[in-house]
């Protein structure tokens, strides 16, 4: 008989259970796959590039360090498991709540408490077991696919081999046992509490005297947050020296979070209440019922709607951060590593020789003469006087380089100066210009535009670079002269490991020791070749000699792909969690609520009108959070994309999120209606 009871309640709520089980098995699947990727041998060898840590360049020396990409994957699976557990525990409670009346009736009929508790325990255990079976099935089916996807987004051509070790299976089994036990015990406790409390439906107090002012206050908060966001767009660039933007962000967050809650708590019900009080509106058609019904549902779901809103906003904000972060890193990368391979006059011979041996297909070859001289100026950004060597290049030479080298810099004409310097911040490019730069034995440069995109790569220089008019360049003296070489290849430089080891001896071609005297003209530079390196000695500047950037590019692409993979996975998971919470919330109506819909049908309300109520309910439940979330997420654009226009990509990202989210709304509506309709035909 107990088996029958369990079977019946499982089948009664089968639609809702199905969603829950699918969401859970999705979570289990993702978790399991992440975990299994962590010890996948083929992935381990595919990611050999990431194996060695401690050296800045991946191709030098294969250390025995652990593969931190895989470490991250494992850590991520842990984080994921934590949130999945929170989700399962929280949502699992919905079902117990739904059965409250049933349990109370059992008790009234004289069933001993422990039997009821046991029933709820096993019910949960069965559902969990089902979810795990599906989840593990998903792991077996999708592991290969997800692994291949990871390799694909990391642009690694490598065949991903499926691998599930016995120790892995054992771990999963342990987690399964533990989590199922935990959830079942928690639900059993929930049942005990229901049986002890016994109080029936708790009446929701309306308390309009509190709700109306609270709602209005919430509205004011939300509005002020929007105004503040507008200010943030202007103020964000001052973040490096002013606390104003941080204060603003802090205020906006607080105002958004509390404002939204207050609006849900006070304003929206008040609106419905007012609409309901307007007789000509409410006494017409089904409104008389639907206003009240909506209000009731809203009351019941305030905290959930709020929760979903804030989490959606958080998800959108994270996506925004990730997007702009990615873009900033990408741009930074793009501007710092322009040639696949670069050399200077000391290394060019060796490198050319090695390239010949390696049979590399050269796509483009460039060379540019540069002069190195000493400069001093007042740096606005650091608010100090700076004295350093600077590399000079003529305007014509600069223009002859591939377009991508100057795309990121300010535009100059043949009479202007351009100072190329490291960007101190990833996200914000300061478009200020530099003034009054003294150059040793050359005219003062009054104004120089600023850029961050180094021709030949930033690592080839030891300081900033200056693009000067041809005339200026011709006349200026040089402490050191050098020539930079750069190559682009078809399919990489094909340098072998031994070749690279050989080349490594030519790294750090020369060292400049600068002796700064009281004035620039008295300061001198001494060039030392093949010196043992004393790092960080003041006044010494090392010239790299050559730079193999193609490999860095590869690394960067792989890292970026990995990052996108993780972000996408977590976003989708969050979306699934939020969507399914709402869907379940809409579907698990109290008994009397679904009975009311049936009653409406009995007294002659058309099905289409009842469907309308369901539709409105679903729309309300799904649309409210996403609208409020979008309003709030807008702030994050202000934070991460200050001053710039709303980019197309971020709109696409948001749109994608909204579309997926609405898809859940649609599914939820379909399921809701199915559930209600089933009861009609009883």
């Amino acid at each position, binding site marked *: 008989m107990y088996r029958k009871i369990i079977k019946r309640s499982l089948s009664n709520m089968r639609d809702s259970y199905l969603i829950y089980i699918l969401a859970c098995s999705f979570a289990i699947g993702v978790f399991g796959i992440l975990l299994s990727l962590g010890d996948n041998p083929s992935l381990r060898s595919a990611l050999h590039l990431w194996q060695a840590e401690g050296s800045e360049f991946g191709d030098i020396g294969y250390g025995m360090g652990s593969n931190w990409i895989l470490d991250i994957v494992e850590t991520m699976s842990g984080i994921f498991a934590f949130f999945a557990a929170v989700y399962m525990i929280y949502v699992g409670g919905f079902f117990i709540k739904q059965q409250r009346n049933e349990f109370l009736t059992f008790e009234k009929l004289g069933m001993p408490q422990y039997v009821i508790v046991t029933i709820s325990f096993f019910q949960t255990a069965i559902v969990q077991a089902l979810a795990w079976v599906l989840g593990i099935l998903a792991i077996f089916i999708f592991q290969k696919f997800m692994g291949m996807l990871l390799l694909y987004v990391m642009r690694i051509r490598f065949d991903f081999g499926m691998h599930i070790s016995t120790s892995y299976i054992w771990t999963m089994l342990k987690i399964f046992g533990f989590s199922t036990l935990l959830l079942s015990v928690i639900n059993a406790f929930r049942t005990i509490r229901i049986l002890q409390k016994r109080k029936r439906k708790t009446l929701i107090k309306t308390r309009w005297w509190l709700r109306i002012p609270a709602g209005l206050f919430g509205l004011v908060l939300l509005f002020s947050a929007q105004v503040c966001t507008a200010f943030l767009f202007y103020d964000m660039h001052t973040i490096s020296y002013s606390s104003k933007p941080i204060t603003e962000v802090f205020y906006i967050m607080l105002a958004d979070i509390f404002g939204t809650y207050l609006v849900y708590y006070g304003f929206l019900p008040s609106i419905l209440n007012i609409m309901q009080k307007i007789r000509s509106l409410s006494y017409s058609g089904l*409104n*008389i019922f639907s206003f009240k019904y909506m209000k009731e549902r809203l009351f019941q779901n305030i905290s959930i709607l709020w929760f979903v809103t804030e989490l959606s906003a958080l998800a959108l904000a994270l996506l925004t951060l990730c997007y702009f972060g990615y873009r900033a890193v990408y741009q930074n990368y793009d501007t710092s590593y322009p040639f696949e391979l670069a050399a200077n006059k000391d290394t060019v011979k060796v490198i050319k020789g090695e390239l010949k041996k390696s049979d590399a297909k050269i796509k483009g070859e460039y060379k540019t003469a540069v002069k190195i001289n000493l400069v001093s100026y007042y740096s606005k950004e650091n608010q100090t006087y700076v004295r350093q060597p600077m590399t000079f290049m003529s305007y014509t030479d600069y223009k002859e380089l591939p377009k991508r080298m100057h795309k990121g810099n300010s535009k100059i004409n043949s009479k202007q100066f351009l100072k190329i310097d490291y960007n101190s911040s990833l996200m914000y490019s300061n478009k200020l210009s530099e003034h009054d730069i003294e150059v040793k034995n050359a005219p003062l440069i009054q104004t120089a535009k600023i850029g961050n995109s180094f021709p030949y790569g930033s690592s080839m220089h030891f300081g900033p670079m200056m693009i000067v008019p041809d005339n200026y360049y011709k006349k200026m003296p040089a402490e050191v002269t050098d020539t930079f070489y750069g190559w682009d290849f078809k399919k990489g430089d094909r340098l072998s490991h031994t070749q690279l080891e050989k080349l490594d001896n030519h790294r750090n071609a020369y060292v400049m020791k600068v002796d700064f005297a009281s004035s620039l003209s008295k300061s001198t530079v001494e060039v030392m070749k093949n010196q043992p390196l004393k790092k960080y000695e003041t006044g010494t500047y090392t010239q790299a000699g050559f730079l193999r950037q193609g490999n860095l590019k590869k690394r960067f692409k792989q890292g970026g792909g990995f990052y996108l993979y993780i972000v996408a996975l977590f976003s989708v998971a969050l979306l699934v969690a939020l969507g399914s919470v709402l869907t379940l919330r809409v579907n698990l109506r109290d008994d*009397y609520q679904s009975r009311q819909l049936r009653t409406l*049908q009995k007294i*002659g309300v*058309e099905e289409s009108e009842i469907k309308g109520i369901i539709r409105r309910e679903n729309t309300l439940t799904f649309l409210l959070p996403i609208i409020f979330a979008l309003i709030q997420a807008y702030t994050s654009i202000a934070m991460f994309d200050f001053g710039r226009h709303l980019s197309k990509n971020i709109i696409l990202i948001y749109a994608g999120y909204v579309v997926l989210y609405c898809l859940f709304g649609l599914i939820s509506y379909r399921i809701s209606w199915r559930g209600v309709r089933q009861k009609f035909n009883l």
Partner: protein
Amino acid sequence: MQIVVKNISKDFGKKKNAVHAIKDFSLKVDHGEFLGIMGPSGAGKTTLLNMISTNERPDHGQVIIDGLDLTKLHDRDQAKYRRNKMGFIYQSFELLDSLNVKENVILPLALNRSNKKLIEERFNYMMKLLNVENLSDRAIDELSLGQRQIIAAARALINNPEILFADEPTGSLDSKSATILLNYMQLINQREKTTILMATHDAFTASYCSRVVFIKDGVVFSEIVNPGDRDKFFEQIINMQRTIGGGNYFNVSENN
């Protein structure tokens, strides 16, 4: 003839343990009749009313009202028909918990988008008539069963339906409320020529009818027409109950 029921039948459940709630049932009801349907619990009274009122579709047979075969109508048109022409007092009341008494009562008028003044007028009239004016603003779960039944009746009658279906309308009422309600039903039956189909197992309630059909196990057992004298009719009903069930099969009302 206003209502013609032709050979309808209805089964519940699957093949093996199917319940034949109504078997090949036929019935004719005249315009303005006050028809009682009597039978023991489980006889199929509710099922019969549900089928005539299009709340349930019969497995076989036809239900023709004013020459229109309702079984052929689409669900949507059935709902419209129900809403416009029929009133219901359900055995389980079917009141909406979310709404208060007033909103429940005026629901049929609101659904038809009647004008506000008419709604208020009709509402006040019904509440006064049924002597429950003081309940207007109560919530449904603050009402006793009897009060709920009266409110359900008020809702059924508020838009002057052409046909009223009443399923055990006095089942939860004390004799005074029952008498008020029955008197009113009789009144609208006589004045407005409302056709009433009422299911009951109570002889006193049935004695208000103009004709009573007895059903048992899903088929018509017999019928009696009101001779014009209620006491005499009541006697006849009691006798018929004895014939069918052998005495105490039916509840005999104490308040005759």
